[in-house]
């Protein structure tokens, strides 16, 4: 992208400052587990890891966009489950072709997200509360349309999550990577992305500039919801089933990934690429600790510590930059 002057004018130091810390953290983690865990730095482990993160990556990208605009979406996990169950229903009960069913699932997710954005923005209700409500509504609806049963969707989705022969990574992973790039592009190269940053920085200033903020907010939440639908497809493909319980708690993992990537919960700051690095940090930790034989409680304690530590370091770095 030649005309992307933001990045082309940026000296290497600044790029390093933006991504360097996270890259170093990832390398340190890889090195640590490489030394202490047997079979960690093997193609098999790394590919398994790569093929297990597409859904959370996609969710976290949507979450980043919403957080940057000063919002939050707690309903992503539930909307993921609802879209997945809807997908199952469309495919199994209505026997719709895959492409149409997928489109339906993504559209349903986008509607849920759009509704979140519209209610919170147009009526000035805190997004935390609106999306908390949506969390329950979407989860309940998911149980409703599946009668609380897990449904087998068969192998027609399999190609989505099966590793592609020469590469070793799945189509899901490639799509997730494309979503990351598209998210970063949206943030920097589109009017919507710039408005998201502007609204997150100071919504009142944007209003004073004579700009209506509802439309961009609805669009951002709808994108986030649509990505939930996509993540739901990815998860269903990996498990060959749709499960109304899926995605529970994933909203917190997604927020964690954003926060580790340096996105501010107060809005105005963040980067999709860095969120992806945040996802990598979490997933390397989880896989590595598992290979070291850590139990689930230990994994959770360590992950929690890393979240706090990363934000602490980030805040210290910013303070020293001001001085």
């Amino acid at each position, binding site marked *: 992208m030649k005309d992307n002057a933001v990045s082309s004018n940026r000296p290497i130091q600044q790029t390093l400052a933006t991504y360097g810390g996270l890259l170093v953290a990832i390398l340190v983690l890889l090195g640590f587990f490489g030394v202490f865990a047997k079979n960690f730095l093997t193609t098999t482990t790394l590919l398994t890891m790569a093929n297990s993160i597409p859904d959370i990556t996609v969710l976290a990208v949507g979450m980043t966009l919403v957080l940057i605009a000063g919002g939050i979406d707690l309903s992503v996990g539930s909307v993921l489950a609802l879209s997945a169950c809807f997908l199952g229903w469309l495919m199994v009960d209505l026997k719709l072709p895959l492409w149409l069913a997928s489109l339906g699932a993504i559209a349903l997710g986008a509607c849920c997200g759009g509704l979140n954005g519209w209610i919170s923005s147009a009526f000035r209700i805190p997004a935390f509360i609106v999306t908390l409500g949506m969390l329950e509504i979407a989860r309940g609806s998911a149980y409703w349309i599946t009668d609380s049963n897990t449904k087998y969707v068969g192998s027609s989705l399999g190609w989505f999550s099966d590793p592609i022969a020469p590469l070793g990574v799945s189509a899901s992973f490639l799509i997730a990577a494309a979503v990351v790039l598209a998210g970063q592009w949206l943030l920097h*190269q589109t009017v919507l992305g710039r408005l998201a*940053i*502007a609204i997150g920085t100071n919504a009142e200033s944007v209003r004073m500039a*004579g700009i209506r903020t509802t439309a961009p907010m609805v669009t951002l939440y709808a994108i986030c919801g649509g990505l939930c639908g996509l993540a739901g497809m990815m998860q269903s493909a990996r498990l060959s089933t749709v499960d109304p319980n899926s995605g529970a708690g994933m909203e917190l993992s997604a927020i964690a990934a954003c926060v580790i990537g340096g996105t501010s919960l107060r809005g105005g700051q963040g980067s999709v690429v860095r969120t992806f690095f945040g996802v990598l940090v979490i997933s390397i930790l989880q896989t590595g600790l598992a290979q070291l034989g850590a139990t689930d409680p230990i994994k959770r304690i360590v992950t929690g510590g890393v979240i706090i530590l990363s934000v602490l370091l980030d805040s210290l770095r910013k303070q020293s930059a001001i001085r």
Partner: protein
Amino acid sequence: MLKLDALTKDFATRAVDQVSLEFAPGQVHALLGANGAGKSTLCKMIAGLIQPSQGSMLLDGKKYSPDSKRQAQSAGVQIVHQELNVLATLTLAENLFLSNLPNRWGILSRRTMHRRACEILSDFGLGDLDPHALASSLGVGQQQLLEIAANTWQPTQVLILDEPTAALSNRESQRLFEKIHLWKHQGVAILYISHRLAEVQALADRISILRDGKLQGTWSRGELQECDIVSQMTNPSKSMAPISSTLRPSPAVSTRQALRVEQLWLSPKVQEVSFSLRAGEILGVAGLVGSGRTELLRAIFGADRASGGSLQVADKPACKPFRNPNEAVRSGLVMISEDRKADGLLLTESIAANIQLPMLDRTGLGRFALTQARQARCLAETYCRDLAIRCDSSNQSVGTLSGGNQQKVVLAKWLERDGAVFLMDEPTRGIDVAARELVYEVIRNLAKAGKGILVVSSDLEELIGLCDSIGVMSNGRWTTSFSGPNYEPQAILEAMFAGYSPP
């Protein structure tokens, strides 16, 4: 071009009273007045931010009644606020074009944006800046210019500039003045507000002066000297005698020191302020809005952390400025802040809970660290009686009270906490006459009891009536002090403007 006809705006009091004015294309029309004269209210009505209670406006002979800033903009009326609205996380170019980002199907045309931003920036003497740099990298003056540029690159008919040079260096100001001359030639009607009288004299084709919401008159360039302007802003008819005879003079002023401030410094609004306050003294702080009065109080109280200087409370040894309000309160300072709704009260809590709040760290009120509701209620009821707080019960939530009664609750809370020094920022803002008298009485009684009291007020007459002496803040500096009881209002007002003149 723009004609105001008997424009009026009522808030709690009448802020703008029947102002009729005409603004001609290609002219700079300065609007002057002391604090609270109604300048900003008038501008906000013109810019569509608030709607007039009465009266009408005509733009180019057509009825003009904008109900939003958007509408005003599309009619060709632009306002540049004094407060900075620059978004630090966006680039300069994005800030310039925020309301109208150049794009094709939603995708930014960065090259177009870059080119046009370069032209606009160099127009404002910011040509050496990279339009793709983040706005956070700019200094305050550059941000102000950017803000002006963002609001003026589109063609406008009427342009309102509210204190545009407040944050600008001399060179940046000169650049702005060149732009103003250019706009004049293009036939823009410019409404110009400034504290800097010399600047106004040099720029303005016409000068209108407001006082207490009323238009005093309009003069052409050169008809008024600076001293005439100041005397038009002060009110000779109103008696400058003490507000109430019981309030004067103050025999309680002792030689004992209550608070000594040395070289207090909080960049950029408070610059090396030194003064001392004696026990039993009511010391007023006069100054224009934005002169650093509030910042001074906040720095003394530790609400903002001062960058340097020292404080001495009563006869304790001098110490560094407080790092937080907790330290200040423990040393015997209390502060009644300017905005009771934002930081003075817990609006949804009861009167009793609000009065109890500063006491929560005192032993005695809580046994086993439990707050005692009954005791707090008794206390609140005593204050409701003493200060005539009009309420149903002490359990009523503070948010449901009138402004005057809310202010009394704020007073009650700090009276109960007690301290050696009371800092009061606009203690009578937005309250009715009766409540005002009561606040004066409380202040007076505090002084009698040997407290040191520092009062900031925009109302010069109030300060003159109330204070044993008055210090003037101007442009961040403590410029002069006057001692009562016989003040010369005009001299004080001149001192308030003094810091804004070129050296």
